[in-house]
């Protein structure tokens, strides 16, 4: 359960966390804390961020939503098992029924290349390929995808054999902080496939002719991936280069 403490400290999520932690047997809390400490001996950027998130959670004041939760029934969290094929390998998981595909990847499988941004499908940082199609992994439950093929940024390329989009993003400086980048690259790889299949977009002049991949088309088709650093023009340049090679 260690991973649950790394969830975002925003709004009701904080409320949910405090309720979950309070309901957990004391021995489990100690066990979780020990694990957290052992992993944090070597201080990394990730452990620092995680510690910050837990502190913010602890300080969150009770809200109206918390009071509503207390009045809700005593239904206990349900356990679930699911097998996902992640980057070509079958991974059997036992998890809380409520676990999103995103949390399963990050917290249960430690595939932290996939990022949690808004956790509501608005930013695209969590984009992965589900049976070859790009999806927001935050907006689907892991348990719904037994047997499905998932490709994350870790499965798209490796440090020694970069995916063409990864190489192009580096060449064109298609990022500043880099947080949206895995989602941008997973999204772009599937987007190019959608264009290859002849699927039109909102800005395509014709619905019946094959779309031509212009800058305007790329911007529209990538609108589900937000870059708050504003590296858009370089992201488009990187995608144009790869699309040009494909054409």
């Amino acid at each position, binding site marked *: 359960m260690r991973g649950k403490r790394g969830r975002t400290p925003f709004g009701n999520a904080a409320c949910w966390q405090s309720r979950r932690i309070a309901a957990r047997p004391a021995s489990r809390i100690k066990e979780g804390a020990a694990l957290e400490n052992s992993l944090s001996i070597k201080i990394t950027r990730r452990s620092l961020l995680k510690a910050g998130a837990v502190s913010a959670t602890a300080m969150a004041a009770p809200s109206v939503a918390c009071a509503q939760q207390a009045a809700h029934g005593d239904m206990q969290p349900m356990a679930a098992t699911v097998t996902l094929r992640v980057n070509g390998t079958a991974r059997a998981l036992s998890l809380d029924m409520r676990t999103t595909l995103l949390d399963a990847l990050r917290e249960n499988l430690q595939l932290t290349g996939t990022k949690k941004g808004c956790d509501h499908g608005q930013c695209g940082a969590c984009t992965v390929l589900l049976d070859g199609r790009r999806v927001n992994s935050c907006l689907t439950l892991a348990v719904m995808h037994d047997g499905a093929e998932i490709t994350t940024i870790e499965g798209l390329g490796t440090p020694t054999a970069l995916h063409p989009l990864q190489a192009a993003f580096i060449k064109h400086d298609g990022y500043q902080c880099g947080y949206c980048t895995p989602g941008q690259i997973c999204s772009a790889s599937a987007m190019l496939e*959608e264009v290859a299949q*002849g699927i039109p977009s909102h800005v395509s002049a014709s*619905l019946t002719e094959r779309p031509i991949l212009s800058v305007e088309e790329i911007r529209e088709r990538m609108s589900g991936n937000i870059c708050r650093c504003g590296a858009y023009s370089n992201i488009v340049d990187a995608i144009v280069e790869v699309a040009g090679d494909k054409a």
Partner: protein
Amino acid sequence: MRPFTYERARTPAEAAASAAHVRGARFIAGGTNLLDLMKLEVETPTHLIDVNGLDLDRIAETPEGGLRIGSLVRNTDLAADTRIRRDYGVLARAILAGASGQIRNRATTAGNLLQRTRCPYFYDTNMPCNKRAPGSGCSAIGGITRQLAVIGGSEACIATHPSDMAVAMRVLDAQIETVKPDGAQRVIPIADFYRPPGNSPHIDNALDAGELITAVTLPKPIGGVHLYRKVRDRASFAFALVSVGAVLQPDGSGRIALGGVAPQPWRVEAAEAELPRGAASVAGRLLAGATPTTDNAFKLTLATRTLSAVLAQARA
């Protein structure tokens, strides 16, 4: 997110029966709206019935010359279907104007019709909202209303229906096929599907408890120029302030529906008789009796101008 139990339904009838049997059960397909709302605890189902395994993901031709769209057909696949692109362009255009590529890959035909309002007060569990918590009051009335309805609302609720796809379905006179928990099937014309909010805005539509949408059928193609024009606060991946779905014929007749202005796709057939007299006449009839707020009165002008642009585009 609150705990829930989960099952995978094997047949539509079994799914409907299960939904009626378990109090607080909800169907889940794409989940792009339901899970968003469950995380915020706006939706708190006790049981999820996963309908993704049902055999409802195909588009087939009907004996009447139309198309029967399975309720699980993903938005991407519906917009990409060559028959939809050729004969029902307003529908393809409307779908492509909505959401993002990622969301359209998961969102289903039925789920799109059933999505909940994006009224900010519906989403904020700290605020009263008659749609989320019946009888608690409406925070939107007297609140921030830029995105909200200018017509068709009530003193209990001025939320809009957010779907683009539904606007096109309304233009095309789509029909919604369902199965009930007792196995009975029925067909609901989309004109009768969405319920005006009245005093019970928590009830969005005509579906009974446990009733499952199995398909949406389109009548045979009507020809004409198919257009969908959407105006929003950014160029992509935003909900409509105003949208216009239209099918316009060479003889000057046509069909018009608006999105972003009402609790349902807004079509008034009598207004279409005004088409020969131009956009202002049509919009005047379509939006007669509108009760905008100071914040959203601009939508009346915007609707007229957007319609004017659509009519000009059809002539071009």
